[in-house]
């Protein structure tokens, strides 16, 4: 571990618009990005609904914050872990999720996917590898 750098995991388990949790999580991630920590996001249970593409909130009068996930790469937040079992249970596949890329400056700004689909067992490993876990 680099000096003063901790591993932070933001755990997202709520669908996007029924409660304020999902938006608040994203706000905290963006604020936290200023502190140069090792940040990962986890999406499991209903949290996987946050990443579904083609969201359109015009008619419910709230902000569609899903495009903001695509800006995370600019804040060096490039690890979005999505649990496969949670997708399966909800009839979703990777194709139902929006594409989120980041540019790797160490490899001539090659574009790489931020979303990594992992198993429940791997998610448990990710969780147990953190210094700090913030839940939403």
């Amino acid at each position, binding site marked *: 571990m680099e000096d003063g750098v901790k591993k932070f995991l933001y*755990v997202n*388990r*709520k669908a996007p618009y029924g409660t304020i*949790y999902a938006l608040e999580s994203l706000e905290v991630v963006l604020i936290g990005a200023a502190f140069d920590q090792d940040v990962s996001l986890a999406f*499991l*249970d209903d949290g996987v609904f946050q990443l579904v593409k083609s969201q359109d909130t015009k008619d419910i009068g709230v902000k569609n914050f899903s495009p903001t996930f695509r800006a995370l790469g600019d804040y060096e937040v490039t690890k979005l872990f999505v649990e496969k079992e949670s997708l399966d249970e909800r009839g979703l596949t990777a194709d139902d999720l929006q594409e989120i890329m980041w540019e790797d400056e160490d490899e001539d700004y090659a574009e790489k996917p931020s979303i990594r689909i992992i198993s*429940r067992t791997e*998610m*448990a*490993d990710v*969780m*147990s590898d*953190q*210094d*700090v*876990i913030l*839940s*939403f």
Partner: protein
Amino acid sequence: MATLHTVNKSPFATQTLLSCLGHAKAGDTVLMIEDGVYGAASNTGLADAMVGMGGAVTLAVLAPDLKARGIDEGRLLSGVKTVDYAGFVELAATHDRTQNWL
């Protein structure tokens, strides 16, 4: 590198406790607090899932929340240990991290 997991919702209202149990690793502790304590009772539809953790995970419940809800300690699943507020602090201090399952 153990984790203390806290669950504060009734398992009969949300999937939170089940999801927590599905992600806890051997050596971790799952502490049921607030409405989460309903998950610690025996003879419920969830008892099998709880017992199925097979001792790899320590199950604990916050006694003041049990008492507040009229759940007698004699009704708890076997193997579930009760802690008071000081015990909660002790658990937080003796694990590497805390994960609150909201």
